[in-house]
């Protein structure tokens, strides 16, 4: 049963699977990162990974409005990183 499952995975799904696994591995750094710096880095990495994963999912399910969602998500990810790093540096936004 597993073998049929493995054979039926297309290339896009494989890439999406690898991206999801690496995103969860980055979650370790978010939880156990010693200070706030590691946490922002990990959240930034997970953000870009999720954006790319969204575009991939759009292609897997052939519903291409996901590309717009991914574009907006990438914008948010950037703004969030800038806001958090400014808060850390200056104590206020």
């Amino acid at each position, binding site marked *: 049963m597993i073998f049929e499952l493995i054979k039926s995975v297309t290339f896009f799904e494989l890439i999406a699977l690898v991206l999801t696994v690496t995103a969860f591995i980055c979650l370790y750094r978010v939880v156990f990162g010693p200070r706030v*710096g590691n946490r922002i*880095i990990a959240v930034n990495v997970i953000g870009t990974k999720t954006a790319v994963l969204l*575009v991939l999912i759009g292609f897997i399910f052939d519903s291409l409005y996901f590309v717009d969602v991914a574009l907006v998500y*990438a914008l948010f990810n950037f703004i969030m990183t*800038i806001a958090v790093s400014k808060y850390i540096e200056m104590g206020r936004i």
Partner: protein
Amino acid sequence: MINLIVMGFLSAGVFFFITATIGLLRFPDLFTRLHATGKGDTMGASLILMGLAIYAGLTPETIKILIMLIFILLTSPVAVHAICRAIYATGVKPWVKEETK
């Protein structure tokens, strides 16, 4: 033939993402982790998006993917630089390897 090119782009992109993740976990210091993830992330995302843009061919989605690609190429280094500045301002000194006699 086109699918081969697309598969090449996507596998290269995934490779860079994996190296960015390994760099994030294995490197000893904040700045070295920033070093790894800043580059690996941007490169991986741009390769995968370029591969998908080629796969999508001449459709409106390709323009959106290319806009997203350009956006990530422009802003990811800026975000990493902002994090680096913020960390350095809070007094985190770069990691120095102890001189082993």
